[in-house]
């Protein structure tokens, strides 16, 4: 295995990671499941490709710098998510999930039929701009943004929505607004991931953004552990690398992939990290929670008749 090969896998994992981090905010912290985030990735990928592709290529692009493609792709996905949110966020739990599924497929079919963007044959002329460094920087920014957001009153309000929607309302939290913000941020992340993906593959095709891709993102978030940023990072690395590691099994590869995911979910039902964070403060928090539980149990035992009085 040479470095170019490993680097390639890491870059793909890094691109997935951006989308997964966004979905982690929506699913892990706000409690909304989506099966349509590949749709937002597709919007990012196509808008990004259109901005940066050379005007001489077919389909023609604008030939603008890569950084504008990132901004444009992310913004386009965010803008579309706003309209999706307006019509679907009032739906309860499972129905929102179904609505996102429909949206994801609709986006794919639209790109399939718009010849301006290459239709089903795809868009071959995307410049190769996703460098290892650019992806690394994007991942670091994505993690810091999310970590700072989650550990603020805004993040806590999102978590409250996940925990108990009615109680969140009564506690003065504008549930709809926080769901909307969470959806928009997650869509921007997916859009940016789409831009990097397009400029990594240099060729995009609607079928790359199918339901399977959406499901893969959701599986990674759950696998990593809901409500854990470190879990999403680890999940993206492990589950993107796993199919490559399993290449030795050839056609059985995906069977082993599925079996591995099931095995880990059975042994760790709350995912790899299960709400924990791999940071000094995150570890301290879990230690404090365990200690408090031990103390509470001891106190309860001491108070029950027959136990040692205090």
């Amino acid at each position, binding site marked *: 295995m040479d470095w170019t090969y490993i680097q390639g896998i890491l870059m793909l994992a890094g691109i997935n990671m951006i989308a997964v981090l966004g979905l982690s905010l929506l699913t892990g912290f706000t409690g909304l499941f989506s099966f349509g985030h590949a749709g937002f990735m597709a919007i990012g990928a196509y808008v990004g490709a259109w901005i940066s592709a050379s005007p001489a290529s077919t389909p023609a692009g604008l030939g603008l710098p890569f950084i504008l493609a990132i901004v444009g792709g992310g913004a386009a996905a965010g803008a579309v998510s706003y309209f999706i949110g307006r019509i679907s966020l009032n739906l309860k739990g499972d129905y929102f999930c179904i609505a996102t599924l429909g949206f994801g497929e609709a986006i794919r079919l639209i790109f399939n039929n718009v010849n301006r963007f290459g239709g089903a044959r795809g868009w071959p002329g995307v410049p190769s701009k996703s460098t290892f460094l650019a992806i690394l920087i994007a991942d670091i920014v994505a993690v810091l*943004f999310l970590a*700072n*957001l989650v550990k*603020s*009153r*805004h*993040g*806590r*309000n999102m*978590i*409250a929505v996940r*925990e*108990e929607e*009615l*109680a969140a*309302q*009564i*506690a*003065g*939290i*504008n*549930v709809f607004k926080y769901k909307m*913000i969470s959806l928009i941020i997650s869509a921007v992340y997916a859009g940016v991931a789409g831009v990097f993906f397009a400029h990594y593959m240099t060729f995009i095709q609607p079928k790359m953004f199918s339901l399977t891709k959406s499901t893969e993102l959701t599986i990674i978030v759950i696998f990593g552990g809901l409500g854990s940023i470190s879990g999403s990072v680890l999940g993206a690395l492990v589950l993107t690398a796993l199919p490559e590691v399993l290449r030795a099994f050839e056609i059985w590869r995906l069977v082993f992939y599925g079996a591995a995911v099931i095995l880990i979910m059975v042994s760790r039902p709350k995912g790899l990290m299960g*709400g924990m964070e791999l940071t000094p403060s995150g570890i301290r*928090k879990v230690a*404090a*929670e365990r*200690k*408090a*539980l031990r103390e*509470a149990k001891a106190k*309860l035992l001491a108070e029950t008749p027959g136990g040692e009085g205090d």
Partner: protein
Amino acid sequence: MAAILHIRDLTKQFGGLTAVDAVSFGVPEGGIVGLIGPNGAGKTTIFNLITGVYRPTSGSIEFGDRSIVGLEPFRIADMGITRTFQNIRLFKNLSVFDNVLTACHLNANYSFADAILRLPRFRAQEKGLMAKAENLLGIMGLLGYKDLIANNLPYGLQRRLEIVRALALNPTLLLLDEPAAGMNPDETEQLMRLIVRIRDDFKLSVLVIEHHMDLIMGVCEHIIVLNFGEKIAEGSADEVSKNPQVIEAYLGTSGEAANA
């Protein structure tokens, strides 16, 4: 005393069922008012109407001198009305401290940018929120449990935590929905003292639904009795307990009693 909450001819129909039928009453500022009645009398529906969870079919609800009919629950909470739930609704997987800290959010106004860039405004306000949460837990005797996941808290303390979470919003009107449900007489006694103390220390008014008559008779200065969605009596504990209609609603008529 001036009334902080004014309800006039409040009616709520669910299809053909009239859950609340032209009910009128007021909660005086600084008062503790009890709302009692048999199961299905419409007590919790009234709470849901006041807090904006349901919209009334007709009638008016005024808080201070503003109508709050049609406002969204979070706006009503923002104005100073908050509540607890009959079936406890805590943020179950969060620690006791985080439950209260989350509810303290109305005491801060830093923006998303402040939070993401960790600007001074974020740091200062966040410190204030932490101090407030800690202080509230201290006053209410839950500081020793602050790191415990709310779900692991003993039942009685979960109810108490729900009250602390409500207080974090700086309410002027607190609605308690069966706060003594599932409590033993000892815990109920403690809760009664707690309700009076909260009213005095936090300078708020309380409207409480309860089935424990000792609690209602012990702390409520004014009692409203509902039956089948209608107000059948109102007055002091003494007046209400002697009212023949109230006795009938709770115990049935003498004829039914003889058959039983």
